[in-house]
């Protein structure tokens, strides 16, 4: 062949149907595209970071060195070495370095080192989910085998068969489990684990940032119990913990463990350059402030990436949304002859086998795009991806960065793209995108001394080992423990007897097993099985709470891009029977929320002059959520094409709430029909909710809100003056409450910041350019009640209301 011919053939490789490949080409094409380029409000490349490495610790035995070498590890990143040195010197450690920086070696190496030197040494690993524990078990077992360590690494959870349980008790060098199993399955039977606890050297807690709020407060108490049991058996384990980026890793870890913790946060792992982009879909209706669908925008942008051969991970906000995006993406990429199988969904409800297959496909490169919920946010190893597209703000900057961290190569450039929805928080960050790079990351908060939680765990602890007078409980002082024990003894939950040395000893005195009555998570693990009636096969599982909104009868359940209709929900037996259908719509549930005050803890009259005032309150409320019906939403156009009713039991939970009651004369001064004023109040509630979430740096879903504008049927108000027709009419109240049962302290902080919160909400509405409400301020017009007259504009009523309160200025007040 002549040279020219060779060149010809080589040139032909960029055939007309071949597309330019790689991130650079896609970003270039976006910049040139008229429809796209305007949407990008941020396009910045974070500089790469070179690796900082140090030699392996000298004391490692040859076996361990060999195990490391077999994984290609001949030196450590600096942070891994620092963590190792802390661990061997007996310090508790929290490692808070970015995703994919080799965090697990930080705790695995000290454990391997110890196990290789002390045959009887034991380690306990805690992971927030079963899947994570199984994932780590495989990796750890390989390393232990390679290092010639005899003891086994065994996962101990609800799925462990009885024989393996026995083996775990007697032989496991490393026990991998979750907090729930430790709490209900191990600690109450600690005598059967006597050898394990007597030789417990390390406790590893991974994904520490997951233990926030109620779950974290529970875990802190489980740790107190664990230490108490370990001490009984004569061991004092060191804690090795790791966390994703949060604002307060040291404080959080210390609160959780109840002791001082050394921080390791300077990563020595290399990262390639990362391009961070924010895309705000174009406005399509200025009057309503309506933007193009962010879901469709995200799908379009992701499709561009996949077509250019960029491995891409797309994060959705909910399971339902993940399925919608999966379907759209497959449809879009069909034209590019990209096989459906190379685009996969990944979310909690998928069965473990399916998830495993997808993870393997990703690692092997057969899967090119995954659409996921936050199930993939956790540290499941899927290898490096080129790009992450985050459709909608996940609720916190920490979570956003956690998702961004899923992309990233050691060398080449990676892409992290946030596509803003029309929600207020999304719009806030789309408008000030620099905040994403600069703002402090959210802090994780727990309250281990929350009385309700503490008392539950004192019961469990007394069951495990009787309490002796003068005993503390972790860092709960003796005096408080004593008071709580006396309280429990008075209620005959404990029985106090005279022990040795004239000391009182408190024994558990019930015939039940207290750990079974204490759930560490507000979401039960009691799943519903989803059964395909044609295949008579379980295709997925779903947790109890999601069942109400996703598996009610006639709901369209989406799974792996396919649609199923729920034919029957067997609520008692936790089964949903579904049949494959091909509808042109999907469904979303309509939930009715009622709030009633159980106990008022504080109130304040907020005076605004001219006799205008609001009553603010704080207290314990009972929130009753009931799914009353569902909407049918047409695919692609997202039109509302019908309604249906749902009959399901309601879910009740006590929690804390902040509320504002609006007196009747304030309502009258707005000079609008009552229905319109109620809609306006709902709009104010929307603004308060969003600004509350931003102010507290929390996920908006951690807060719930509802407007109670009429007394409940048959409700005893206990305040006769407010019953309609008797004295004054019923005064509407806006409630903003902690969505986590029991509360995690958000509402009290809103109460403290009530004036700033009101001013901030007023500013948000005043600044927004929309004419009659949009998702970024008082909520979209479509959300207004049907009874409200169409001819009326709502936003002016909101502004008049805020004006009465002197809140319509657009000057930004600072948070205290």
């Amino acid at each position, binding site marked *: 062949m002549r040279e020219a011919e060779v060149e010809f053939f080589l040139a032909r490789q960029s055939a007309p149907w071949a597309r330019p490949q790689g991130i650079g080409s896609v970003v270039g094409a976006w910049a040139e595209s008229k429809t796209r380029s305007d949407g990008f409000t941020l396009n910045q490349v974070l500089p790469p970071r070179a690796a900082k490495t140090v030699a392996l610790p000298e004391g490692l035995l040859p076996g361990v060195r060999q195990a490391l070498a077999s994984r290609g590890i001949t030196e450590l990143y600096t942070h891994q070495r620092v963590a190792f040195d802390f661990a061997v010197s007996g310090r508790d450690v929290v490692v808070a370095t970015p995703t994919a920086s080799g965090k697990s070696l930080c705790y695995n190496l000290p454990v391997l080192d110890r196990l290789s030197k002390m045959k009887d040494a034991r380690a306990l690993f805690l992971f927030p989910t079963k899947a994570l524990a199984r994932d780590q078990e495989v990796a750890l077992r390989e390393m232990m085998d390679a290092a010639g360590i005899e003891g086994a690494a065994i996962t101990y959870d609800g799925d462990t068969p009885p024989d393996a349980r026995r083996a775990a008790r007697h032989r496991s060098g490393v026990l991998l489990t979750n907090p729930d199993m430790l709490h209900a399955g191990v600690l109450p039977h600690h*005598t059967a684990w006597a050898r394990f606890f007597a030789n417990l050297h390390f406790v590893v807690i991974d994904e520490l940032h997951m233990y926030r709020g109620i779950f974290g407060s529970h875990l802190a108490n489980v740790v107190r119990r664990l230490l108490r049991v370990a001490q009984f058996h004569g061991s004092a384990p060191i804690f090795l913990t790791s966390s994703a980026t949060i604002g307060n890793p040291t404080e959080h870890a210390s609160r959780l463990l109840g002791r001082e913790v050394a921080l390791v946060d300077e990563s020595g792992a290399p990262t390639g350059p990362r391009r961070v982009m924010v895309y705000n879909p174009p406005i399509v209706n200025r009057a309503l402030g309506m933007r193009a669908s962010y879901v469709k925008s995200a799908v379009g942008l992701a499709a561009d990436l996949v077509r250019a051969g960029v491995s891409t991970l797309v994060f959705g906000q909910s399971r339902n949304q993940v399925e919608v995006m999966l379907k759209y993406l497959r449809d879009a990429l069909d034209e590019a002859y990209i096989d459906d199988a190379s685009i996969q969904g990944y979310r909690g409800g998928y069965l473990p086998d399916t998830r495993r297959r997808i993870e393997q496909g990703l690692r092997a490169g057969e899967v090119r795009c995954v659409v996921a919920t936050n199930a993939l946010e956790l540290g499941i190893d899927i290898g490096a991806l080129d790009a992450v597209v985050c459709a909608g703000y996940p609720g916190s900057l920490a979570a956003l960065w956690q998702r961004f961290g899923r992309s990233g190569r050691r060398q080449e450039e990676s892409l992290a793209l946030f596509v803003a929805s029309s929600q207020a928080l999304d719009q806030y960050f789309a408008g000030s995108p620099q905040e994403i790079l600069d703002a402090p990351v959210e802090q994780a908060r727990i309250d281990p001394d929350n009385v309700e939680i503490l008392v539950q765990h004192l019961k469990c602890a007394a*069951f495990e080992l009787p309490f002796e007078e003068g005993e503390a409980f972790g860092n709960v002082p003796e005096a408080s423990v004593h008071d709580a024990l006396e309280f429990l003894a008075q209620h005959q939950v404990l029985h106090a007897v*005279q022990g*040795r040395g004239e000391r009182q*000893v408190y024994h558990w*005195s019930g*015939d039940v097993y207290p*750990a079974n009555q204490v759930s560490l998570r507000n979401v039960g693990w009691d799943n519903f099985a989803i059964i395909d009636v044609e295949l008579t096969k379980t295709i997925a599982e779903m947790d109890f709470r999601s069942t109400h909104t996703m598996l009610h009868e006639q709901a369209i359940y989406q799974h792996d891009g396919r649609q199923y209709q729920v034919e029957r929900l067997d609520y008692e037996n936790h089964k949903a029977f579904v049949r494959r259908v091909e509808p042109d719509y999907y469904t979303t549930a309509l939930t009715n929320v009622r709030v009633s005050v159980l106990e008022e803890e504080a109130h304040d009259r907020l005076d605004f002059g001219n006799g205008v005032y609001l009553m603010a309150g704080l207290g314990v409320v009972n929130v009753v959520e009931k799914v009353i019906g569902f909407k049918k939403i047409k695919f692609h156009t997202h039109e509302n094409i019908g309604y249906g009713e749902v009959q399901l039991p309601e879910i009740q939970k006590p929690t804390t709430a902040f509320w504002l009651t609006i007196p009747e004369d304030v309502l009258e001064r707005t000079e609008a029909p009552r229905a319109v004023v109620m809609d306006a109040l709902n709009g104010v509630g929307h603004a308060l909710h969003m600004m509350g979430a931003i102010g507290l740096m929390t996920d908006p879903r951690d807060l719930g809100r509802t407007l109670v504008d009429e007394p409940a049927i048959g409700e005893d108000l206990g305040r006769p003056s407010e019953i309609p027709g008797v004295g004054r009419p019923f005064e509407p109240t806006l409630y903003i409450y902690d969505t986590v049962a029991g509360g995690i302290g958000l509402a009290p902080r809103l109460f403290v910041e009530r004036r700033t919160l009101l001013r901030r909400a007023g500013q948000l509405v005043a600044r927004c350019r929309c004419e009659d409400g949009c998702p970024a301020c008082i909520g979209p017009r479509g959300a207004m009640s049907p009874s409200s007259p169409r001819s009326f504009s709502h936003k002016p009523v909101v502004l008049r209301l805020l004006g009465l309160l002197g809140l319509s200025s657009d000057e930004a007040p600072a948070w205290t």
Partner: protein
Amino acid sequence: MIDRVVELTESYGNAPLHRAFSAAPSALEKIALDPTMAGRTMSDAVFLDTETTGLSGGTGTIPFLVGVLWRRDQRLHLRQWLLHSPSAEADLLHCLCEVIEPSSTLVTYNGKAYDWPLLQARFVLNRVAPPTFRPHLDLLHCARRIYRRRLGGVRLVNIEAQVLGRTRIGDIEGCEIPSLYWNYLRDGVGARLDPILEHNQNDLLALVAMLGTMVDHFAVPHRAQDPIDQLSIAQLAARARDTARSLAFSDSVLSRSAEPTVVAEAALLSARLRAARGEVDSACEALLSALRVIEGEILLTSQVHLALAKLYEHKLRQYDRALEHGQRSRVAEGALAHEKRCARLARKMSGVPGRTTPRRTCGT
């Protein structure tokens, strides 16, 4: 501590107490299906039963009443320790250890799953050294093997009523026990616990009586026994590799009128054991005699015909008789296997030597 002495000549229900102690070690080993019982007699065994503050187990469950029983000379010594305070537990465990340590065997009802692990946890919690290992005869498992088929369930009360012929009157319910104890601790009224003490004593005596009855039932088949129990014993003896006993009991079932399933199972068991010993003719006889009793039971007769077909084909090589039975074994073996069998037998009958035809399947 409460001590009581019971004469060995007494009975519990219709069961004399002394029988448990005359049991031959070989019989005990077989009833227990436990080789560690080899050579043990009950004369230095300790019978044990506990009452606890909960039924779900876990370290917060306290055995507040521990009852033991052992034989010395012609008397049974029954001793109960009651915890007057949970803080006295370590002392109780020391005392218990002193009684158990010189014994050869522990006898309980469901103690392998419940009482003993619970006590082990208590030893750990109170930092008291537990007694050294010894064989543990859990009569629940024995009773399950011998009586469950007839009785359905083998709760101690069932066994007492159906096997020992005794019904307790005013016996306390298990679920009431924990709260009675906590009430006693609060008000110190000891009389509250009398029903529990009595309950525990009865349990211990029932253990002794039951073991004696089981040993007696296991010794030789007799007319007073229910054929269902006899079949269970035949199966137990077969598992213990006591072929003579198993045959004695299965043949006893065949000699009596019993339900067709019981007869069929006894015949199949008997035939299997006899064929293994090379007594093929008598194996066939057992099956043929069963056929007369179970006539009309389609599945059972089919199973017996299948067993006969195999014996005639493989052991006796009487292919015509084999085919005769084989033709009636379709239900038991399924259509496909059935057709193969019949075709093969027909071929063998026609004189084509089996070995010269190419073997297509294993086990022809």
